């Protein structure tokens, strides 16, 4: 699918987990990256600790695409259990590196690949005497083989090894040796018959390879998070653990040993949510990280946060539901549920980062928004974004100070004769609050999830109830325009595509592919819920808008039907992907192209007109 002469190489390594495959994959990734070649790695790991099939997808493109691709140009097959099935992943005419002991692949499989059998186990046994170590080093041998096939220079590998084993000189040496073993074996025993080759580029200068959970964690720290209450759950745990790691490094007073953040591992997600609300009520910037099952458990507290108007940041790194689902696969399956979480009339601002950079930025913004709007803010990331490495421009140092929202301190209260916690004095639906501990007779109020009036007094009055609920709806309107605005690309096509979150990267590529085939598509990337007014403009301006959802039910498409109303909704077409794999461009092209067949045919017939659009 790449342009002529352009690089687009996709490698798939099939291994078992808990066997050092992770570091082998990373070293290979970083080595290619060190060659100046953009990479897009995807790790497909099982929900277990060791011994089950794991696949690593590594794509390298000169176009700098960040999405993956489904079929492999080069397949490294190291897991006997999946060997036969894995062959189906290979492009016709592709390259197959495999454990010699598996025996040759059944003929016909992969229609004539270039075959490189390598006795990995035997090589490991011979070169790594320590059996414990061997378990973790067998995989790295494949990196040497692949380096030899693709022409990855030692210098690039060395750079990658140094990154991976910075502080572990012994491991560094052992891994280096294992790579050499692989390279040497290929040189001495096999002949390259394929034509795959990686040539250095200069497109990664200044770029970083980071995981969304890592950048989100830095965002939390830079956003002034002082309370993290969490409960471990894949794929969100590493976000919390990154926050803790950063805190250990940057939030500890060298002299006193004091730690300027509380990181509490709660007993479950219910408790974590409650801690966030307690802390937010008391004035701290508090957050939790979780995934689907945790969101379900937090429902009651989110309703309290909504109605009692308490700030808090709730990060959902989405995995595949329903229920326990596929804990190590990716999906955008919690959008509708998070947006409307809890019984009664509720609706919550949801931020939808589309890149690791936005994971960093939106986390900071989330704390501002939570305090500005005094309500729980969701940040919905996903496993693909959170746990895979992504090439990114460097993260900028924040330019603005925190916005702590409408808080009245003693000094302001001194100027006032009356303070009512829930009165809309500014007309934006956002009332003022005081924090416990404020030394002023007007300051205190009673926080509750039961009916209350503007002065926070208990009431069952029908009129008061309605008034408060109407203001809450107004507050969300205020929020609507403060949230990250959509980003529009193009503008003159008849057809649009609307996507959000990690889908972005496949969309960008799909647009290129479709454009090359004569179909021009404009693109709106949604970055928050409730949707901003630009969305209606965008939909109005297009005959058809494809809404990309990584879930079965087309949840965003459904939300848009509600938010945009029927007049615009009839322009929406749902494009859905929900098998737990990251979204690839082909998943979109395969759905959009046939649907647009007439338009494409027309465009082909009129190449000039299409180009002029």
């Amino acid at each position, binding site marked *: 699918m790449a342009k002529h002469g352009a690089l687009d190489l996709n490698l798939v390594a099939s291994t078992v987990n808990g066997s050092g495959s992770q570091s082998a994959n990373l070293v290979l990734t970083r080595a290619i990256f060190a060659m100046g070649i953009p990479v897009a790695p995807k790790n497909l790991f099982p929900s277990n600790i060791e011994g089950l099939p794991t696949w690593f997808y590594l794509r390298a493109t000169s176009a700098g695409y960040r999405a993956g691709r489904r079929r492999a140009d080069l397949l490294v097959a190291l897991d006997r259990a999946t060997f036969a099935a894995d062959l189906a992943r290979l492009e016709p005419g592709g390259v197959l590196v495999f454990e010699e002991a598996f025996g040759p692949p059944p003929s016909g499989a992969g229609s004539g690949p270039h075959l490189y059998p390598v006795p990995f186990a035997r090589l490991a046994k011979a070169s790594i005497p320590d059996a414990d170590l061997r378990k973790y080093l067998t995989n790295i041998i494949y990196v040497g083989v692949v380096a030899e096939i693709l022409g990855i220079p030692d210098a690039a590998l060395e750079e990658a090894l140094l990154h991976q084993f910075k502080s572990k000189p012994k491991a560094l040496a052992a891994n280096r040796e294992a790579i050499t073993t692989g390279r040497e074996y290929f040189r001495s025993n096999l002949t390259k018959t394929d034509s795959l080759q990686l040539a250095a580029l200069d497109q990664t200068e200044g770029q*970083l390879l*980071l995981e969304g959970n*890592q950048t989100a964690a*830095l965002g939390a*720290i*830079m956003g*002034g*998070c*002082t*309370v993290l*209450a969490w409960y471990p759950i894949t794929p969100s745990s590493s976000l919390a653990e990154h926050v803790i790691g*950063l805190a250990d490094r*940057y939030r500890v007073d060298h002299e*006193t040993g*004091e*730690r*300027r953040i*509380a*990181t*509490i591992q*709660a*007993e*479950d997600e*219910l*408790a974590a*949510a*409650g*801690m*966030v*609300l*307690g*802390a937010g*009520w*008391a*004035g*701290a910037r*508090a957050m939790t990280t979780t995934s689907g099952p945790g969101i379900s458990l937090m429902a009651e*507290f989110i309703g*309290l946060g909504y109605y009692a108007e308490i700030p808090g940041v709730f990060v959902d790194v989405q995995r595949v539901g329903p229920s326990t689902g596929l804990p190590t696969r990716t999906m955008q399956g919690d959008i509708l549920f998070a947006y409307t979480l809890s019984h009664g009339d509720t609706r919550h601002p949801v931020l939808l980062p589309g890149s690791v950079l936005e994971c960093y930025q939106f986390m900071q913004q989330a704390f501002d928004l939570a305090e500005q709007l005094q309500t729980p803010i969701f940040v919905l990331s996903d496993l693909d974004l959170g746990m895979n490495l992504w090439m990114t421009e*460097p993260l900028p*140092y*924040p330019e603005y*100070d*925190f916005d702590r929202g409408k808080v009245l301190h003693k000094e302001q209260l001194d100027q006032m004769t009356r303070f009512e916690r829930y009165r809309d004095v500014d007309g934006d639906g956002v009332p003022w609050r*005081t*924090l*416990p*501990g*404020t*030394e*002023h007779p007007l*300051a*205190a*109020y*009673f*926080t*509750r*999830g*039961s009916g209350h009036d503007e002065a926070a007094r*208990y009431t069952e009055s029908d009129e008061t109830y309605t008034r408060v609920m109407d203001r809450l709806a107004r507050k969300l309107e205020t929020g609507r325009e403060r949230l990250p605005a959509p980003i529009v690309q193009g503008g003159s096509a008849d057809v649009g595509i609307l996507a959000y979150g990690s889908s972005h990267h496949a969309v960008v590529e799909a647009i290129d592919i479709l454009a090359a085939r004569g179909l021009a598509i404009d693109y709106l990337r949604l970055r928050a819920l409730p949707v901003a007014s630009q969305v209606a403009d965008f939909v109005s301006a297009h005959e058809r808008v494809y809404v990309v959802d990584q879930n079965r039910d087309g949840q965003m498409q459904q939300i848009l039907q509600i938010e945009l109303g029927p007049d615009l909704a009839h322009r929406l077409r749902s494009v859905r992907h929900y098998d737990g794999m990251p979204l690839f461009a082909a998943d979109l092209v395969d759905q959009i192209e046939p649907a647009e067949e007439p338009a494409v045919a027309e465009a082909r017939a009129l190449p000039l007109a299409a180009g002029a659009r």
Partner: protein
Amino acid sequence: MAAVTVKVNQLGLSRDDYKGLATTLCAGCGHNSITNHIVKALYDHGVDPYRLAKMSGIGCSSKATAYFVERAHAFNAVHGRMPAVTTGAAVADRDLLFLGISGDGDTASIGLGQFCHLLRRNVDCTYVVENNGVYGLTKGQFSATADLGSVQKKGSVNQLETIDIAGLAVQVGASFVARSFSGDGAQLVPLLRAALSHRGTAVLDVISPCVTFNDHEGSTKSYQYVKDHELILQEMDFIPQQTEVEVDYAEGSSTEVELHDGSRLRLRKLGRDHDPKNRLSALQVIDESRRQGEVVTGLLYVNPEMPDLCSAENLPRIPLRDLGAEQLRLTPDEFASLLKDWA
């Protein structure tokens, strides 16, 4: 107009300053008596209303935070989840003094897990369970503290063993555990003051009869039952910090517990020999009294040494919520070097 002299405490506040809204609980409800004892304890203790945070769950009992110290902030959380909310607030602002009010349903039924984990973390707060053995607010169903064999108003008999809140608290490692009775201010007020002086979670399991749904014959949480079966462990006096008091008890009959802020609780043994610093002794006295159908009251266990959550987490003296970007963000240099590490 004639000048009226109002008695004030060390902060210059009158007892009225510790009052709240008029109660909406039933006349005669034990919870109302506890409210009165709390008002007295807070007044006597000279608690600053602005530093007080009143926490609760859901239930008749949990409503009680509205009925004292109107000038303090309050958080009436969802049912059974006050512990988590309090934990979050306590780390956010360690300068606040947390006083939590819960019910037996709130604590021992829906809230059991959170309650135990609060104790495990030793969050600095006073946790009062207004224990009536029933769900008052939802009209009289048994709670998990109803005793085996206790009879419901409509006649059905509880088939399940009680969850003994005090015993459970000691078992899971609480640092301060006492039991008392809503009708016994002489005991409850010093216990409350000691709890306020304790750093860590102080659990007060206070039997508090529900006159509407659980004060009949056959109930083991009725006024009459408690009066008939109370086993008072100690007489007690709370001696504030810096107060010199002459010891005038006979040798050996009294002990003192020194609390975190330097104040002391003086205990004079009454019923049984019990060392409140001995966990096992506490488990024993609770277990035995329960088996005998007695309601043992007094200070059951205290360990003033156990670090509270903020200390264990090594949080700064200044409340977390007061920290600004300067203290929280990486400096530009640190930031640059981190990104370099990450590259």
